[in-house]
């Protein structure tokens, strides 16, 4: 076994390693120098597209066809997307974090290919991109920034609902090179762009474009470290500058001494910058230390979060800083406990007693040594060394009295998954850190997208992850490509997926429908347990009434409404009504929304359904909303007519006719009396008339509308009191014997209005009350003598005494007298 340090290189005081991942990656005929090559983050797929600006030899019609090819890191062709040149020339290719391929063309159209498939979602960058063209794009995890022909920058923050936003406008001179700081790592938390224009640099965000006043330019390359903490610039005179992320501090400068400008400059993790020429790489570490690598053929740099993939026709290598744990264990002459532990473990294998000596030596820091070995195993690509390290850890562990083995167990599981994914047929050479960042769920998703169902299922089972997505993906694939007859496909899918939790048959059915297998889609959809899920597809399949029924079944009014809106647009009115007629919930929803928005629809609905009362009410409501009386009366007439044949609504009809009558009266009153009447009720009209002294008119209204006598009396009383017509009230008291509502209300209301004198007039008329109540009434009016007399008349001594207690002055004397009389009368 070769030493693990064999591929290490020392740059300054740090070690870097060049891990060979795969060999014989591409066909040797493939002229990699003529291709744009981009790699998805986390060691994902590699997309290559022939650079159309480069002339190349003709190889027959087949090869001349333009394609975007997606390869695994090991050079296995996963997908080939035909690109007909009619779609426009490709200006940028890039990947998102979740392995969506993003293709931007010159005319500002962006196509997003999800799940490594051939189907895409297009959107336009807008902001004039179709006229000025797209120059280039820079991508980050969840979005990208496009540089347009007029130097304007358009940012797209997500692909789910892309909303291209224009950033602040930089000067219009030629952009030499540019880079972006992703929103997650910028100070402002939104994307920032660094543009090299002329000799200086501009930073651009949503609101400002700042000149940073550099004069060392023009900068040929700009590269931002994966976490945005450092920036690297390549100057025209062959120097590499590394500055801090906020551009305040220059950290190092390296002179490459090469006249040709490198083809590419990328960060390798966050510690080193790699310069790439055609077949040469310079790796510049901290403090300007550097080393050079030479290759046999043209190479491409594919940066990742913790390192750099280097891709040539026959090699795929991973260049990264050697992790600290690995350095601790393997560095020549390392005196770290972990190194001793590994040594001890080897000695143990050789049955050497020295093993124990070594263990005793590192005894105090043994736990730390075990941890280091476990971590180092994670960073190791070579299975032999992984095993050796884990064995060492296990040995160390056994010596310790107390050790939490969770990390060890986790690491064993993780390594098993990693090794499976790194296998050349799969070609996902994830580093340990990448795997942790990617998460196992995403790994499974990536495997599923590569149609590696078995491995995906195994890993899911091994790590206890849900498997529904894998099954659905498999079934969708089956539906798309299987040549079996539809029935057997359906049977096969149902048999395989029956009883599997979380499987969405709707998604499978949609795939079938998109493939044109409508019958299969319908059949599959029947297995979908969620009614709501079925609705959109059913609508697409033009199964409108079934969709409506399913929506109603789901109980989700939003869905029902959605279907209804769809139907309303599609169907003629009559058939629309026929559809909703038998479905009360649908009718109710149509009614309630139409009431706010579309009264005409409602009218038609009521007419069609012969709902006379509702129709008439609708007209009444319209009558109410008219601003003048003429149209109101017309509407009322219509409302009344609406009900004319319906016997059960005669009451309603009379009321409507009365309303019209009332309005006409009120209109006359308004003209005659120039006071507002319209809008008042019958009672209010009478009230106002009496208050203003138009008693004749009030009487007339009252008799016309058959206002009950009691009500009329109340109205009169209230109106007179509110107008303070005291004389008239006194007149009533003296002229009328009986009141339909008794005299008490007269007393109460007048008293409330504060006129005790008039109020007292009514007291003697309240003959139905007890003396005590009358005494109370007198007292309320402040007429204590009268109260005393009342009590005296009733010969109620206690009552009289009460009155006395309340009284004072002459009244008291008077009452005392009455009391005396009562007293003497008794005895």
């Amino acid at each position, binding site marked *: 076994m070769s030493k693990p340090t064999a591929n290490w290189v020392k740059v300054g005081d740090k070690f870097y390693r060049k891990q060979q991942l795969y060999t014989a990656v591409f066909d040797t005929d493939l002229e990699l120098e003529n291709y744009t090559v981009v790699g998805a983050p986390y060691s994902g797929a590699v997309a290559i597209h022939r650079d159309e600006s480069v002339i190349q030899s003709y190889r027959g019609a087949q090869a001349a066809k333009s394609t975007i090819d997606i390869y695994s890191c090991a050079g296995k062709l996963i997908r080939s997307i035909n690109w007909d040149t009619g779609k426009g020339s490709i200006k940028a290719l890039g990947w998102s974090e979740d392995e969506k391929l993003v293709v931007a063309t010159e005319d500002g159209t962006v196509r997003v290919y999800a799940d490594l498939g051939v189907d895409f979602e297009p959107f336009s960058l807008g902001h004039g991109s179709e006229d000025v063209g797209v120059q280039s794009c820079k991508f980050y995890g969840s979005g990208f920034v496009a540089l347009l022909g007029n130097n304007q920058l358009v940012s797209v923050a997500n692909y789910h609902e892309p909303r291209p936003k224009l950033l602040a406008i930089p000067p219009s001179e030629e952009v030499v090179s540019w880079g972006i700081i992703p929103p997650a790592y910028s100070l402002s938390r939104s994307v920032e762009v660094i543009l090299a224009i002329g000799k200086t640099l501009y930073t651009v965000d949503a609101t400002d474009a700042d000149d940073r006043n550099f004069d060392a330019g023009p900068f040929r390359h700009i590269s931002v470290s994966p976490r945005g903490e450092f920036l690297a610039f390549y100057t025209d005179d062959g120097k590499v500058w590394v500055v801090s992320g906020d551009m305040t501090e220059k950290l190092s400068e390296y002179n490459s001494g090469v006249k040709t400008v490198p083809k590419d400059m990328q960060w390798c993790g966050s510690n080193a910058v790699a310069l790439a020429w055609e077949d040469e790489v310079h790796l510049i570490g901290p403090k300007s230390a550097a080393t050079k690598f030479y290759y046999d053929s043209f190479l491409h740099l594919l940066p990742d979060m913790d390192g750099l993939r280097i891709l040539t026709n026959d090699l795929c290598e991973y260049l990264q800083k050697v992790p600290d744990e690995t350095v601790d264990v393997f560095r020549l002459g390392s005196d770290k406990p972990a190194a001793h532990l590994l040594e001890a473990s080897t000695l143990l294998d050789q049955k050497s007693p020295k093993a124990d000596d070594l263990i005793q030596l590192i005894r105090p820091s043994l736990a730390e040594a075990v941890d280091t070995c476990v971590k180092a195993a994670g960073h190791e690509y070579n299975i032999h060394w992984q095993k050796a390290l884990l064995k060492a850890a296990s040995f160390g562990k056994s010596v310790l009295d107390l050790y939490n083995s969770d990390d060890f167990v986790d690491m064993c599981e993780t390594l098993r998954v990693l090794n499976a994914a790194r296998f050349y047929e799969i070609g996902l050479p994830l580093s340990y850190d990448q795997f942790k960042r990617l998460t196992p769920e995403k790994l499974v998703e990536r495997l599923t997208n590569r149609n590696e169902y078995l491995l995906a299922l195994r890993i899911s089972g091994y790590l206890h992850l849900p498997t529904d997505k894998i099954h659905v993906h498999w079934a969708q694939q089956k539906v798309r490509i299987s040549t079996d007859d539809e029935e057997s496909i359906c049977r096969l899918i149902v048999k395989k997926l029956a009883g599997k939790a979380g499987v969405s048959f709707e998604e499978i059915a949609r795939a079938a429908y998109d493939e044109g297998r409508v019958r299969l889609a319908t059949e599959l959809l029947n297995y979908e347990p969620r*009614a709501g899920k079925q609705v959109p597809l059913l609508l697409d399949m033009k199964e409108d009434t079934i969709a409506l029924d399913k929506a109603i079944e789901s109980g989700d009014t939003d869905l029902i409404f959605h279907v209804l809106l769809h139907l309303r647009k599609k169907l003629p009115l009559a058939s629309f009504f026929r559809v909703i007629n038998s479905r009360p919930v649908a009718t109710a929803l149509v009614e309630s929304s139409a009431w706010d928005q579309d009264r005409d629809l409602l009218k038609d609905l009521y007419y069609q359904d012969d709902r006379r009362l509702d129709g008439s009410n609708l007209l009444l409501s319209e009558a109410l909303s008219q601003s003048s009386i003429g149209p109101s009366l017309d509407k009322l007439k219509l409302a009344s007519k609406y009900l004319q044949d319906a016997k059960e609504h005669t009451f*309603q009809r009379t009321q409507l006719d009365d309303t019209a009558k009332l309005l006409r009266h009120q209109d006359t009153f308004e003209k005659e009396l120039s006071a507002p009447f319209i809008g008042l009720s019958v009672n209010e009209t009478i009230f106002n008339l009496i208050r203003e002294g138009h008693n004749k008119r009030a009487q007339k209204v009252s008799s016309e509308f058959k206002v009950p006598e*009691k009500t009329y009396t109340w109205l009169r009383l209230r109106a007179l009191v509110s107008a303070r017509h005291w004389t008239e009230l006194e007149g009533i008291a003296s002229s009328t014997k009986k009141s339909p509502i008794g005299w008490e209300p007269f007393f109460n209301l007048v008293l409330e209005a504060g006129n005790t004198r008039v109020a007292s007039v009514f007291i003697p008329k309240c003959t139905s009350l007890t003396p005590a109540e009358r005494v109370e009434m007198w007292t309320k009016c402040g007429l204590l003598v009268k109260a005393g007399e009342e009590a005296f008349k009733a010969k109620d001594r206690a009552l009289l005494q009460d009155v006395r207690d309340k009284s004072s002055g002459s009244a008291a004397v008077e009452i005392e007298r009455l009391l005396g009389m009562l007293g003497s009368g008794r005895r």
Partner: protein
Amino acid sequence: MAPISPLNASEISEKARRDLLLLLEGVRGKKNLVLEKTLAGPLNLLVKFSTLQEYGVDKPFFLENDNVDFSQRNIIFLVRGEKAKTVISVAKQIKRIRRDSQIEHEFSIFWVPRRTTVSDQLLEEAGVLGEASVSEWPLFFVPLADDVLSLELDDAVSDLYLRKDPTSIYLSAKALMLQQQRYGLFPRIIGKGDNAKRLAELLVKMRSEVTAGDSSSNGPSFLGLAPSSTIDSLLIVDREVDFPTVLLTQLTYEGLIDEVFDISANQTEVDSSIVGGAAPQPGQTGSASTSMKRKIMIEPKEELYSTLRDSNFAIVGNLLNKAARRLQSSTGRDQLATKTTAELRDFVSKLPSYQQESASLKLHTSLAEEIIKFTRSDIFMRSLEVQQNVMSGADPTTQHETITELISRNVPLPTVIRLLCLESTTNAGMRQKDLETFKRAVIQAYGPQHLLTLSSLEKMGLLQSRGGTTLGGPAAKPGTVTNYTPLRRSIKIWDDEVNESEPNDISYVFSGYAPLSVRLIQSIIQKQTLANLIKPSTHPGASAQANPLAQGLRIFDDATKYVKGATFDEIQAGEEKAIKARSMLNGSHNDANKTIVVFFLGGITRAEIAALRFISGKLKEVGGEGRGSRIVICSTGIVKGEGLVGSAIEKAKFG
């Protein structure tokens, strides 16, 4: 300690708060917030305005006012997305701003509680979908108190009963489903009412859908679908089952505050002449309070208020006096002299709390005085008299004269309608002739526009002629109307020996009438007590637990026969394995720690809340029926009579 109790109010508010702040954080920089008026209350309960400011909110606006200005680049709409009307109004405002403003704005729309396909569709048609970044704020339950969770759906009543729009049922199901996913299935769902049944069906359906749903998006919820070991059951009552309770005037303190001043989201607005014009509390979202009105937070956690709120108003005066005396005795000046230094220090440290208490005492005394004014009014007495007579079973025609008089005296329309509806709903409708007389009287007194009001009331089933609708349909089928006569006896909804000061039965909340809705709940969770109440044990010595009436669901079954709407009883069992796993995880529980969830579909009154709290208190007592010690009250919102009939009242006028 037992694991966290299910449907925990503070947990729910905390989550809603965090969700909103996260959304706000997603919009960089300062922003103007446009919100629907109905959301202002819940928002105020969950997040202080100062916190919103910390998260960059500059000025709040109401959607209804359509007056958001151009002062900030970012404009956020916080609105409910269920109704097409609001969606269209959002679209219109975005268009207006885009047209009139000099600068380019960034629009965000936070739909509450979910983003709907219809909203997307409508925004797209209006051409603004691409302009705004759209997200959702999943605000379902808003905790009003530790044991009261409200969906705060103000339209629920009119939607459900007038327009027959089941949106609120679906949202309720969603809200309950979220709780089930968190705490496990309700082991039993039982209840009364057609809409309630629909809700129960939806819950069962959603459960199977969640099982089938994409498990990956819900996280590790496979355990969540086993019956909960901490929840006893879910009781659902449809408001339609018991309209009379809402129509009656509430007689508890909190109920009367609601009747007189109107409480919304624990906040009430009182004329400053009553409570003194102190500076408004900081941190209120409603900035537009006029100088005359003052907003007061009804704080459920405040000590004094929590003793007052559920008491019958008749004894509130006494309670206030007692509190005043206690406060005086502990802060009285003459006592200070006699204190040692240690006592003094203790006293000083308590001073802030005394101050707070005395402020609260002052507030409630003024409120109570104002309410007394209201309850002493002739109109209040008259209408209360009618209510009491109708509920105790007097012949309703004897009350007609009083109602006619009230109409002639032009008392506010809602008061009259409440009385009329009360008669109709308790007597399975009114006689055709009487009904027409009253209809005429109402129209003549309040205006012809109320033809529509009366028509709406009929649709809601609040005001009908006997024997079904006026459409001349056949006589009412059994189960479509509630018959109160047998109920007065079989579950004793009228209590002649009511004791308001030391209540021994829920009838205290209405001074005689025991709300039917709560009686139904009692017949399930407090069977023994109810049985003994209906039919006191003949042998005083016999164990109180042995009343034969209390067996099974006898009372419930007996009663529901006479009550309108469907009855249902659903047991939700899970896979045996999952149950075992759950009980292993949570440890075993005795029944006493379980939570009973009561859901009022279509709203609950404050009086009913008081009654339920009373039951909850009894259950907790030693020797109570240990089926559960905690009742959590959930509802689509808080209702009262004015709101119920108000949703039917036509507001337009001629001219």
